[in-house]
């Protein structure tokens, strides 16, 4: 297990400063400053269309913010492309699985190991006969409980197994921070409970910025919650603080109740 990256003076591992992003007249992200501290799960919740995915995409590098700064491990990564952020240790999972459907579970995970070792410029030795890559991939599959499916073609996996595989690929990268976009989406009650247990332990390894709709999971896992409404963070605090906030109730939880 990789140790937490020590940040001097309790500096956050990951932080955004005044992020803004507009699509035409729609302000999808409005002056968002959030941070992720070592050892925590920081959940971002908000109604549909609040701009959660837009925010996540800006942090992971898929989308350029109009203004604002993103800092990761004390370094400004605002100008880095997505692959450079991943290389720097920012691991993400997607809301809609981004997996190679024609490839096996093992091949998908080995791709992560290739990225981690940056050993992609090898044209001769078969990837699936490279012991180091296989060991890294299998260790990750073991951890998410997908080792029995290692030779199954991804297209034949159940939805829940694909979610597990997304996490396994992220694990092969030994990230310094995880960004997870609705990892529970579409999981059944049992699957959701399993993954909740897994993420609970994972925070010791690297903090998790978690976007999630499943409120049971969020309340069970989150050290802190930020509530995003119309692109703005309207509250950040512990589970109890957010639950008892009048503003949040009106804007969001009230709707659901």
């Amino acid at each position: 297990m990789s140790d937490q990256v020590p940040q001097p003076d309790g500096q956050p591992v990951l932080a955004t400063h005044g992020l803004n992003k507009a699509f035409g007249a729609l302000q999808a992200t409005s002056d968002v400053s959030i941070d992720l501290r070592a050892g925590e799960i920081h959940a971002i919740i908000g109604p549909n269309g609040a701009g959660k995915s837009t925010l996540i995409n800006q942090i992971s590098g898929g989308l350029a913010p109009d203004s604002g700064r993103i800092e990761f491990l004390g370094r400004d990564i605002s100008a880095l492309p997505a692959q450079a952020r991943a290389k720097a240790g920012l691991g993400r999972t997607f809301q809609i699985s981004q997996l190679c459907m024609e490839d096996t579970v093992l091949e998908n995970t080995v791709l992560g190991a290739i990225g981690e070792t940056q050993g992609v410029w090898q044209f001769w030795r078969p990837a699936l006969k490279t012991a180091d890559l296989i060991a890294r991939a299998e260790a990750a599959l073991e951890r998410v409980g997908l080792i029995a499916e290692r030779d199954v073609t991804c297209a034949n996996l159940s939805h829940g197994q694909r979610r597990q595989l997304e996490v396994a690929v992220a694990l092969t990268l030994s990230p310094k921070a995880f960004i997870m976009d609705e990892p529970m989406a579409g999981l059944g009650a049992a699957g959701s409970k399993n993954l909740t247990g897994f993420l609970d332990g994972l925070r010791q390894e690297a903090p998790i910025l978690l976007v999630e709709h499943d409120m049971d999971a969020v309340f069970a896992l989150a050290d802190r919650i930020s509530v995003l409404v119309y692109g703005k963070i309207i509250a950040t605090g512990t589970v109890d603080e957010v639950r008892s906030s009048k503003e949040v109730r009106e804007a969001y939880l009230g709707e659901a109740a």
Partner: protein
Amino acid sequence: MRLNETYINAAVLIGLLVVPLWAVMVDEPFTITLATKAVILALAAVGLNLILGIGGMVSFGHALFFGLGGYAMGILAYHAQTFTMLDLGLFSTGGTKMMPIIWLVAIAVSAVIAFLMGQLVLRTGGVYFIMITLAFAQMFYYFSISWSQYGGEDGLSIYVRNEFPGLNTLDPIQFFGICFAILCVVLLLFSRLQTSPFGLALNATRQTAKRVETVGLNPMHLKLVAFVLSGAITGLAGAMFADLNRFVSPTMFSWHLSGELIILIIIGGVGRLMGPVIGACIFVVLEHFLGGLTTYWHIFLGLIMLAIVFFARGGVIGLLTGKEGAHV
């Protein structure tokens, strides 16, 4: 019908070797020439299959590299046979008739052009990629037509086939042997590359570029390296094709040829090691036998394409192995 792909691959190569050997025994040199043509077209299509089948880049301009290889051979051999100097600015050369040198030049020129072109075309995708690669090939096509120094529209004839140390290239079976050996080497490279870490990542780029970025790899770099390798292989095939015909003309740059290379791959099997080889054999056989019956033989090629697209998405290999090919 489900057959092991390795056996099919071996059978195809053995068949491709046995036919010309048989032709030597019954003294049918034209059959050897046909087999050589199939081998060279296969080589060109293997180059395209690298980016199309593994990388998902549908280049509709690969005749560009085929033509570059052809003109590399034509220009070097032309200066050698006319004893004139080829002035390249920094230095000048009297050309050469040595195949290995010509091949290296063809590979280098194609690779450089692919690298430069890749900077631009790889930023596009889908139908734009198809069109911009076509546009590049057409630019070279029209340039070659107007390049009167090297024959312009009429092309350039090379009177004697170029030389290979220790072999008599004028003997059809010996020239076939050279081409066949090169095809085998490139097929070996292709099969290793396909399963290597690079091949796995390139294959992932075809399926979802986002995933590749997320593991910290740059899809652009992967695609660019594949594009350069692909162009180099097709360029090499172009030089050999020109040597087979002892003739180079702008038709080597034409979009018909780009289309034919794609068709070969689809008929044989997209992304499959032997797909281009099977496709090339079928193409040459059809062209010879049906082309003798009617000048409109492409109609039958079209019907085969229709049948493949509707009933055998993995091409001939897909049909035999029961496994579909790569989705592009």
